[in-house]
C-alpha cells in the first residue's frame, strides 16, 4: 500500500501513457511531465506568495492578507486577476520587441531548470547525465533576460538595476558552482538522481545526507548564501532595491509582464532550493529511518522545499540589505575563498580514513578559515558595536 | 538522422557569415562577434565529425571543443578588454579610426 502511495504519480503517468500508441509514448510522457511541472509550480508560486505575505505579516506583528477567501488564502487569485486586467504600459522610448521578450526569456529557462530535479523516488522528469550542468546553464540564461528588461525599458533606474543584477548574479554564480562541486566530487557524478541515491541510508538515527558532514554543512551554508544572492532575495536584493533604485530592472513593467517577472523570481527561488535539497539535504529521503517507508518520498521533497521558502521569508523579514560594493566584497573576499577551502576539505574528507580524524581536520580547516576571513572582513573597516559617552 | 554533410554545410555557412561580419563592419565589437561565430562554426565541425567518427569513445572532437570553448572565453575577455582600452583612448569603437600607431 505504502509502495503504491509512494509511486502513485509514476503509476498514474504510466497508466495515462498506456492509452497512446507506442511511437507516441515518449512524447506523451514528456508532455505529461511538463504539464505536471507547470501546474505544480504555478500552484506552489501562489501558495508561496500568500505564505510569504502572511509570514512577513506575522513577523511584523500584522495579520497579512486575510480578506479574500478563508484566512485570505485566495489572495493570489485576486492578485492574478488584478495583474491580468491591468493595463500593459510600455514606455514611449522603449525597445518594444526586447521589452516584450524579456519576461518570457526570464521564466522559460527557470522552467527548464525544474525538469532535471528528482522530486521523488523514480520521479525525475528527465534523467540527464549532466543534470547539474543543465541547471547552471539555464540559470545563466536569466542574466540575459534581466539585461534585456533593464536595457529595453529606457530608464536609468532599470539600467542601473540590470547592471547590478548581472554583476551580482555572475559574482555569485562562481561560489554557487564551486560549493556544489564538493558534492559532485564526493559522489562522482553530475546526475541528480545519483546524487540523491548517494545520500540514502542512515548512520544510526542520522541520515547520510551531505549536510551532516563538515564540508557538507559549510558547502550547504555557502550554497544557501549564494542561492539567496542568485535569486535576488533579501538581504541580497540590490537589483530591486526599492529604496535605492526604485524597483531595478522591472521598474517599467506592469500588468502581466510584471507578474511574469515576479513569477520568474519565485520559480528561480524554488529551483535553486530544489537543487540545494538535491545536493545537500538528501533529496526525497526522509530525515528519520522509520519515516522512510511510511510517508511518500515526494512529500519529503516538498516539505524540505517549504522549509527553504520559510527560511527565505524569515531572512527577508529580518535583515536589511547589503550595499552593492559590500555584496561584491563579500562574494569575492569571503564566500569564494571559503568555497575553495571547502573543496580542499571535501578532498581531504574523501581520502582520509573514516573516523574522528577527518572530522577534526575538516572542522579545523573550515572553522579556522571562517574565523580568519570573518575577522579580516570586519577588522579592516573597524566595524564593531560602540560605546557611547554621556554628558550630564 | 541528418547526414554529416548537412552539418558541414551549416558550419561553412556560419563561418562565411562570421567572416563577412568581421570583414565588413566598422565596429570592433561586431568584428569580435564575427570571430566568435567563426570559432563556433569550427566547433560544430568538430562535434559533427566526432559524432560520425568510427571511434567516438576516444572523444577527441569533444575534447577539442571543450578546450576551444575555454579559449574562446579567454579570447572574448581579452578582446573586449582591448576594445574598451582603445575606446578610452580614442573615444570610439570604430575600427576605421584606429589608424594611429602612437599611443
Amino acid at each position, binding site marked *: 500500500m505504502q509502495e503504491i502511495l509512494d509511486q502513485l504519480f509514476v503509476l498514474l503517468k504510466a497508466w495515462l501513457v498506456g492509452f497512446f500508441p507506442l511511437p507516441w509514448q515518449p512524447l506523451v510522457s514528456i508532455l505529461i511531465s511538463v504539464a505536471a511541472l507547470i501546474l505544480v509550480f504555478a500552484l506552489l508560486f501562489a501558495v508561496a506568495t500568500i505564505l510569504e505575505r502572511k509570514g512577513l505579516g506575522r513577523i511584523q506583528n500584522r495579520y497579512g492578507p486575510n480578506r479574500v477567501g478563508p484566512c485570505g488564502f485566495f489572495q493570489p487569485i485576486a492578485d492574478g486577476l488584478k495583474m491580468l486586467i491591468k493595463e500593459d504600459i510600455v514606455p514611449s522610448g522603449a525597445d518594444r520587441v526586447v521589452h516584450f521578450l524579456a519576461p518570457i526569456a526570464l521564466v522559460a529557462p527557470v522552467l527548464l531548470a525544474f525538469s532535471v530535479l528528482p522530486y521523488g523516488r523514480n520521479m525525475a522528469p528527465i534523467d540527464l547525465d549532466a543534470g547539474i550542468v543543465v541547471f547552471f546553464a539555464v540559470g545563466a540564461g536569466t542574466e540575459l533576460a534581466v539585461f534585456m528588461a533593464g536595457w529595453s525599458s529606457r530608464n536609468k533606474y532599470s539600467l542601473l538595476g540590470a547592471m547590478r543584477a548581472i554583476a551580482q548574479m555572475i559574482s555569485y554564480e562562481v561560489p554557487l558552482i564551486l560549493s556544489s562541486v564538493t558534492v559532485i566530487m564526493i559522489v562522482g557524478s553530475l546526475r541528480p538522481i545519483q546524487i540523491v541515491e548517494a545520500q540514502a541510508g542512515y548512520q544510526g538515527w542520522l541520515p547520510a545526507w551531505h549536510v551532516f558532514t563538515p564540508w557538507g554543512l559549510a558547502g550547504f551554508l555557502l550554497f544557501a548564501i549564494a542561492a539567496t544572492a542568485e535569486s535576488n532575495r533579501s538581504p541580497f536584493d540590490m537589483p530591486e532595491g526599492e529604496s535605492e533604485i526604485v524597483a531595478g530592472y522591472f521598474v517599467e513593467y506592469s500588468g502581466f509582464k510584471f507578474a511574469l517577472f515576479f513569477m520568474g523570481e519565485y520559480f528561480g527561488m524554488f529551483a535553486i532550493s530544489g537543487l540545494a535539497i538535491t545536493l545537500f539535504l538528501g533529496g526525497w529521503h526522509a530525515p528519520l529511518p522509520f519515516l522512510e517507508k511510511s510517508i511518500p518520498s515526494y512529500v519529503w521533497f516538498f516539505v524540505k522545499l517549504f522549509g527553504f521558502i520559510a527560511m527565505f521569508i524569515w531572512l527577508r523579514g529580518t535583515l536589511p540589505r547589503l550595499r552593492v560594493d559590500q555584496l561584491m566584497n563579500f562574494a569575492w573576499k569571503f564566500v569564494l575563498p571559503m568555497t575553495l577551502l571547502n573543496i580542499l576539505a571535501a578532498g581531504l574528507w574523501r581520502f582520509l580514513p573514516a573516523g574522528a580524524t577527518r572530522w577534526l581536520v575538516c572542522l579545523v580547516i573550515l572553522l579556522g578559515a571562517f574565523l580568519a576571513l570573518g575577522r579580516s572582513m570586519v577588522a579592516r573597516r573597524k566595524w564593531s558595536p560602540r560605546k557611547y559617552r554621556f554628558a550630564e | 538522422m541528418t547526414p554529416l554533410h548537412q552539418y558541414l554545410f551549416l558550419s561553412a555557412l556560419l563561418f562565411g557569415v562570421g567572416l563577412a561580419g568581421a570583414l*565588413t563592419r566598422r565596429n570592433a565589437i561586431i568584428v569580435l562577434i564575427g570571430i566568435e561565430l567563426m570559432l563556433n562554426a569550427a566547433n560544430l565541425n568538430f562535434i559533427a565529425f566526432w559524432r560520425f567518427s568510427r571511434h567516438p569513445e576516444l572523444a577527441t572532437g569533444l575534447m577539442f571543443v571543450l578546450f576551444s570553448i575555454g579559449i574562446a572565453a579567454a579570447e572574448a575577455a581579452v578582446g573586449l578588454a582591448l576594445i574598451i582600452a582603445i575606446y578610452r583612448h580614442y573615444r570610439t569603437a570604430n575600427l576605421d579610426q584606429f589608424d594611429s600607431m602612437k599611443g
Partner: protein
Amino acid sequence: MDPVFAFLALLTTAGAVAAVSLRNLVHCALCLVVAFAGLAALYLQLNAQFIGFAQILVYVGAVAILIVFAILLTRGSEPGNQPILSSSWQAGLGVAVLVLGALGVAVASSFVRYYPVSPAPQPTVRELGEQLMTNYVLPLEVIGLLLTAAMIGAVIIAMHEKQGPR
C-alpha cells in the same frame, strides 16, 4: 531533411546573419545569443550533451554578457547616423563569399556526403572527465594557465590607467 535539424539550422543561421548585420549593437548581441543557443541545441542533437550545456553556460552566460557590457561601455558618445560598414567592405564581402564558396564546394565534392550514420555514442561526463585527467591532462593545465593569464591581462588592460580599480 530532418525537420528538427532544419529548424535549428535556420534559427542559427538567421541569428548569425542578424548578429553581424543589424545596426543596433545590443540587438546584434541578443541575436548572437540566439545563434549560440541554436548551436547548443545542435550539439545536443549530435549527442554531445555536456558540450551543449557547457556551450550555453559559457557563451550565453559569460561571453554574451561580456559583449553586452562592452557595448554599453563603448557606446556613450557615438552619433547614431554613421555608416555601419567599413570603408573596405566590398573587398571583405568578396573574401567572405569566396571562402564560403570554397568551403561549400569542398564539402559538396568530398566523400563525407556518403559517410555512413554510425550508432549514437553515449559519452558520459565521467568518461570525459577521465579522458581529461589522463590523455588530456597537459592541455587542461595549459588551458588553466591560459585562462589565468587572460584574466590577469584583461583586468590590467581594462583597468583605468591612473586611478586603480575600486
